[in-house]
């Protein structure tokens, strides 16, 4: 005779109810999702990680913006030879637009590198240390494990790499130009920036699932980013499928000019590839031995 699942489940419920505890929610491929997500979000926002990330991104992105918006004009006023450089910085655009254009250039480049570095250890570390095996010996589904890693890093990047530096940039531009940045195109540009980060986060999570060490994860992710730029200049068709000009897409939106077909294709391909990376990561992780 085999133990009845039903009677045991009832016993569990009675035991839990006696203590006021209820069985955790979530079953199937989302089992454990809420608990794991809360833990991962805690790693971002209940440790000092958020403070370090704010300092890093405000220094890199907004520090650069401050240099451009306040430092360069101040230097040009005391060093006349810098005046042409200061005037060329915004390429003849209104300063509130030109400033935001520069923001997207620096933010997409630095943010992408940062996202790769931040996420490269997420899966590898858990596999190597044995914590993945520990977690997955509990009622936690493998897809939920991968999705919480992706979602927590995306939310962390959204808040600390995209939203906060973007908000500070708006303030910097206003202080420097006394002009308000048009919000709708700016927010759309921020969406493109987030999509660029999401692409690399998905790629790095997939690579973390596929490989057992950090080398290939970092190598391939940076290879796509920097190698893509080099190859993209030699074979322009690459730009139709890889997110090599996401800053340009944000800038085109900011300028309100029609988007070239290549950039439209790049935007769509980035979203599609991100989803493909996630699906492959979910499928592969289902079969990994821990």
């Amino acid at each position, binding site marked *: *005779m*085999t133990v009845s699942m039903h009677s*045991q489940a009832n016993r569990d419920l009675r035991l*839990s109810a006696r203590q006021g*505890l209820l069985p*955790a929610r979530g079953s199937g491929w989302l089992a454990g999702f809420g608990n794991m997500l809360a833990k991962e979000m805690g790693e971002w926002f209940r440790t000092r990680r958020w403070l370090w990330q704010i300092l890093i991104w405000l220094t890199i992105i907004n520090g650069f913006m401050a240099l451009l918006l306040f430092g360069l004009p101040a230097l040009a006023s005391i060093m006349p030879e810098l005046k042409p450089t200061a005037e060329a910085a915004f390429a003849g655009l209104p300063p509130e637009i030109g400033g935001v254009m520069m923001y997207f250039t620096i933010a997409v480049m630095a943010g992408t590198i940062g996202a790769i570095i931040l996420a490269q250890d997420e899966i590898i570390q858990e596999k190597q240390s044995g914590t993945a*095996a520990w977690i997955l010996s509990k009622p936690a589904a493998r897809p939920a494990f991968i999705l919480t890693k992706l979602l927590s890093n995306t939310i962390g990047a959204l808040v600390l790499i995209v939203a906060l530096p973007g908000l500070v940039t708006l303030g910097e531009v206003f202080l420097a130009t006394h002009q308000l940045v048009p919000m709708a195109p700016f927010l759309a540009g921020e969406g493109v920036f987030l999509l660029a980060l999401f692409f690399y986060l998905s790629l790095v999570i997939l690579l973390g699932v596929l490989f057992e060490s950090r080398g290939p994860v970092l190598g391939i992710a940076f290879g796509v980013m920097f190698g893509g730029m080099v190859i993209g200049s030699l074979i322009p068709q690459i730009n139709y499928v890889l997110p090599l000009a996401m800053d340009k897409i944000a800038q085109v939106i900011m300028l309100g000019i029609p988007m070239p077909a290549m950039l439209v294709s790049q935007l769509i391909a980035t979203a599609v590839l991100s989803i493909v990376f996630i699906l492959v990561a979910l499928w592969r992780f289902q079969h990994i*031995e*821990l």
Partner: protein
Amino acid sequence: MDTSNSLVIETHNLSKVYKETQALLDLNLTVKEHSIFGFLGPNGAGKSTTIKILLGLIQPSGGQATIFGQDIQRGSVAIRKRAGYLAQEPRYYEHMTARQIIGYTARFFYRGPKDLIEARVQETLELVGLEDKADRPVRGFSGGERQRLGIAQAQVNYPDLLILDEPAASLDPMGRHDVLEVMEKLRQYTTIFYSTHILDDVQRVSDTVAILNKGRLIAEAPISELLAGDGCSAIYEITLKSEGEASLSSARDRVSGQPWVQNLSMAAEDGLFCWQVSVSDDTAAEDLLLRLIIEDRSLKVKHFGRKTYNLEEVFLEIIGKENSK
């Protein structure tokens, strides 16, 4: 309710192949409810592989298994809701405290008011004696403290099945004693399936034992049967006092002449003669052996009994036989 015959774990020809290595071959196991099932074998025998397959951490190459009647692959999450697991080398998030680790584990099983979950966490920490270290990061924990934390996190959900992979391996004698005590305490609530190579511990707490060697199950029996010599040849120990050499010699001839007697060895000590009689037919030996000896009234039998083994002897004999095949 009599549940003594209920099966918690059943495996049918469970196998695992790693490239060209057969880690597990046609494993057929049955684990009864509320038993403490000792899973023995030398290093590399396939014990941890079996445990990981049962928990869904690795996939079998062949065969099937059920836990609580659920298929281990299709019903893995449902099974894990009712199981607790302690890994051979338990790993946790090193920056988290013991309380955070147990709380995190508990929330995979329960929801409800925060104070109730914290009360359960506290109760669990007290069970393993970690309440005074509950708020320290686990990176500073000793091997024994990690193992106690491992047992705590494994039973935070009042599991119906507790799977422990070498639970006492890294512990000092006191730590081992504590772990075995906790296992005995938990027995009334749960079934315990544990692997170990510490045979004294198995003999102390287990009621059923399985021995695995090179991926094959070579013995599975209640421990009382194994220790009685089942699985090995039965040996009777007899201590005699004899007035003369002739009566001893004729008794020896009578016994040796029986077709079910395989071997008779004798040693003399302090005027007594100690025989060890190896038999192939236990029933015949029980009926006839003593009678054959006391036919001669000049022989005095000081001791007569079937030799009982300790687990180490049984284990070494079974493994030795298997390896010599």
